[in-house]
């Protein structure tokens, strides 16, 4: 059976009240949703809360998903994106003051898997440098405007194709491509500036 068919069957079982099917869906998509939330919201705690909210919303509106209208992943990403936009609007004021209180290090849970598992082959200096680079890129990503950020995240981190991104963001494909280009270029400029300041 194809993946789309498996997912459609899972969704039907969920709607029928099968708790095991729902758990399978949660197990299958939680990592992906958490990563989108983490890269967009910037903090592990926010990402955890948002991921929970996404699943609660999915659980309540699962019967509105139409298999004919698109892939389940696109629907899930759309739900996630809508919640992220709401969250962004709600926390707009907080971000102005929170930047002063930003913790120096990120949430431990939000550490990349590659950094949690100790790589014996990589020397400690390289590991520290890799972590610092990752932190710097993550921070620079937070400085992008939300429109550019979401486009870049969905393309470069979630590997969605342009058509899927256009469906999630509800904009034409040309706009998606333009946002991705501008987002990448802006990120490169920010990081160049950061590294120039450090050196």
């Amino acid at each position, binding site marked *: 059976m194809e993946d789309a068919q498996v997912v459609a069957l899972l969704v039907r079982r969920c709607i029928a009240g099968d*708790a095991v099917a*729902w*758990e399978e869906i*949660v*197990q299958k998509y*939680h*990592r992906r949703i*958490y*990563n989108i939330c*983490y*890269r967009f919201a910037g903090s*592990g705690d926010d*990402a*955890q809360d948002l*991921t*929970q909210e996404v*699943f*609660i919303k999915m*659980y309540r509106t699962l019967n509105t998903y139409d298999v004919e209208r698109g892939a389940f992943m696109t629907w899930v990403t759309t739900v996630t994106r809508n919640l992220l936009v709401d969250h962004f609007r709600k926390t707009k004021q907080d971000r102005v003051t929170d930047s*002063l*209180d930003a*913790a120096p290090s990120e949430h431990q*849970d*939000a*550490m*990349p*898997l*590659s*950094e*949690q598992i100790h790589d014996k082959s990589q020397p400690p200096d390289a590991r520290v440098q890799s972590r610092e*680079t*990752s932190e710097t*890129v*993550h921070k*620079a*990503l937070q400085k992008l405007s939300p429109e550019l950020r979401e486009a*870049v995240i969905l393309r*470069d*981190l979630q590997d969605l194709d*342009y058509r899927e991104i256009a469906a999630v963001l509800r904009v034409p494909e*040309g706009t998606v*491509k*333009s946002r*991705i*280009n501008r*987002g*990448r*270029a*802006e*990120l*490169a*400029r920010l*990081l*160049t500036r950061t590294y120039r300041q450090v050196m």
Partner: protein
Amino acid sequence: MPGESKNGMQCAEFDALLNDALDHTLSASKMESFQAHARVCPVCSLLKAEAEEGQRWMKSLAEVEPPANLVHNILAATTGRESAQVKLATPKPSWIDSLTAWLRPTFTVARQPRFVMSFGMVFFSLSAVLSLSGVKASDVSHVDLRPAAVRRSYYETSGKVIKYYENIRFVYEIESRVRDFKRATTPAEPAPEEQNKERKNDTSGQPEQRQERNYSQGENQPVLASLPDDPPVVTMTTYRRFV
């Protein structure tokens, strides 16, 4: 610049093809004209370089691992059911872990510079107030905290306060005025005979006043002393000292 044609390709077209070029999905002929345009147009060349670099940075970001309890929390929030897999996989946390997890939010707040600054200001203000009021840390350390000593100091302090309060001239004057006022407003006391009658009929069971009981013994008891019919008048004046 958009709309500008260089080497058979406009900048807007270059911009539209940039994603496909970076994804390596352009046909050979398109790629050739794309690269030719990039060679002659500095603006598009810079955009391509930056987009490539940005893509490289984004690809360097690794996938992050979600917290271990995320699935459990989601299932608890949606179905109220515990995950079978999580239940088997995660051992029961020790009480130390639970306590640490419980205290973590508090310490996270306490670690914020804003909180630390506020705490510092409160501490500084308290120490300034205490030192100005003459309280020393050595005095505090010698305070006797035994229950009996605490009780004694409580009674001593309350006694001092009551004494001080009652000796205030204003309070005393008010009290005496109130007493005068009461005396003026209450009706005159009934005659002793009426009082005796009333007491005979009193069935409340309350004992009579001691002074009256003593006087009631007069007729049967021998007279130990007596006053003349016309006793001398003694005038007494009381002076109250105001402190």
